[in-house]
């Protein structure tokens, strides 16, 4: 599903440089990335999503070499193949939950909003336990509910790959487990691959593989 080979990336400023000699993921696999702040975890997610372009190396996602795509093609590819879940949920305060879930269809011409999508939202919202809260704005929802909305938004496009950046970072311990369960469950149902960045070592046993970016080693006994 994902193949990263000899990727090197540096921001224009500062002396940070990310080097990933090799990383691969099978379809449907759940992989967690841990590591200290500034070790390049989120940068890797952005490279895989095609938001950033590596200085060198090759990244293949779902059989597509994202490093060879143009900016427009990368955006289209991202919209149709990748779902994002963020630590701060990144919901829009001025839209109710339903419209937040449908937001990718509002901003991406490649995605067509039709009745099937609306029915899929109903199913997802039911599964995430927020069906009766779809008309509420984010400030009327708890943090756990907001993250459920964010998960629905990530899954509504039926992505092949879900990138989760500290998705449980802002949640209380009880909610963390439930949200991660929900994410796993929905990813499994959709047959999606899950690449998650987390600081929370308590959650690592739930992943099939864990990579520690502190020394770039695979933690086999997570």
């Amino acid at each position, binding site marked *: 599903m994902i193949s990263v080979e000899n990727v090197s990336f540096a921001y224009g400023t500062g002396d940070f440089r990310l080097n990933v000699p090799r990383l691969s993921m099978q379809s449907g696999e759940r992989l967690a990335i841990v590591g200290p702040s500034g070790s390049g975890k989120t940068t890797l997610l952005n490279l895989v999503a095609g938001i950033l372009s590596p200085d060198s190396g090759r990244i293949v996602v779902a059989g597509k070499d994202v490093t060879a795509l143009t900016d427009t093609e990368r955006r289209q590819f991202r919209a149709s193949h990748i779902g994002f879940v963020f630590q701060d949920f*990144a919901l*829009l*305060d001025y*839209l109710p939950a339903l*419209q937040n879930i449908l937001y990718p269809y509002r*901003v*991406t011409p490649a995605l067509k909003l039709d009745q099937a999508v609306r029915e899929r939202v109903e199913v997802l919202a039911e599964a995430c336990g927020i069906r009766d809260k779809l008309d509420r704005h984010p400030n009327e929802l708890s943090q756990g509910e907001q993250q459920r909305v964010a998960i629905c938004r990530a899954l509504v496009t039926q992505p092949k790959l879900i990138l989760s950046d500290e998705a449980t970072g802002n949640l209380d311990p009880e909610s963390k487990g439930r949200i991660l369960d929900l994410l796993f469950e929905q990813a499994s149902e959709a047959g999606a691959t899950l690449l998650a960045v987390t600081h929370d070592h308590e959650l690592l046993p739930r992943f099939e593989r864990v990579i520690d970016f502190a020394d770039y080693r695979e933690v086999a006994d997570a």
Partner: protein
Amino acid sequence: MNTLYLAFAYLRYHWARSLVLVIAAALILFVPVATQILLSTSQTALIARGEATPLLLGSRGSQLDLTMAALYFSNERPDPIAMREVDTIWDSNLAVPIPLHTAFSSGGFRIVGTSLDYFDFRDLTFSDGRGLSLLGDAVIGAAVADALGKGVGDTLVSSPENLFDLDGVYPLEMPIVGVLEATNTPDDQAIFVDIKTAWVIQGIGHGHEDVVTAADIAAGSEALANASVVQFQRITPENIESFHFHGSQGDFPATAVIVVPADTRSATILKGRYLDSENPSQLIEPASVIQGLVDRIFRIKSLLDVVTAIVAVAALAAVGLAVFLSYRLRAKEIATAVKLGARRGMVLRLLAAETVTLLFISGCIAAIGAALVARNADTWVGWLLSLGA
């Protein structure tokens, strides 16, 4: 479509901020336009009134005061001119003189004593009732009728000139016999009476019960007139015969005389007769006086335009800053949209749609406001011009 949907959703959710921006932008657009409309309408109205009055005869003094008193029935009180000047104009056969007496008021509106020629001259028509025919009759302008809620069959009482003038003239009660059609000119704000009625109000003419009866004459007894003789405060068919004037009518006062010359040559001859600076009377062209006033006003307006432009630029800068800060505050939303696959153009279109929507609504409000001002400019300008009266 999606762009507009999101733009409207954002503006609706942040309605207070949107409302402030819309109002600010609408005011920036509306105020200069409305000011321009009102000023140009004022200029037109002022000049039209001046140009419709060929010549004005009055006492030598301020030409502006004379013009304002005679054309706009303002509070200015130029020295009165004697009525013999009217006779002089008549006798010259060069023009038609229309005397005006604007010294008194009733219910806050100017009482204008004049002759029937005034109504033809100003092309005034009646919405109700008839013209002046008897001493004491009053015809009121449309605005007077609206403001006082009076019409044909009601009466008006002239206001005393001075509350402490205990031995002064009694107020005169005048029946309203006609209401004029609105003209959006100072005539709407005036109460018209015959100039002789104005003289009665002034105390030059009056009516009272007979001092000498037929029995007194038969008995050969002497007549004694004193304060116990009842003066009439309303002119009726029964007592109208008792009204009379003391002195020569040629000495009676008028505020000014509108002079309507037969032709250009007559006007030139008449103007020549009043060139002498020793002459206590002056014959002026109101149009040139008004033009001078308008020129002065518009010199001040130029300054106001600069001030308005500076304020508009400052306000626009403030609105622009508010919009810019709003974009900065939404940097996270923009980043989210990009991560979800939105094109850069889509994000720009979204922000542009919000800005254009705000400006469009502001423009619509400003346009509606400007249309309202343009539609009512004549009425409002007439009202504004009458404020000085």
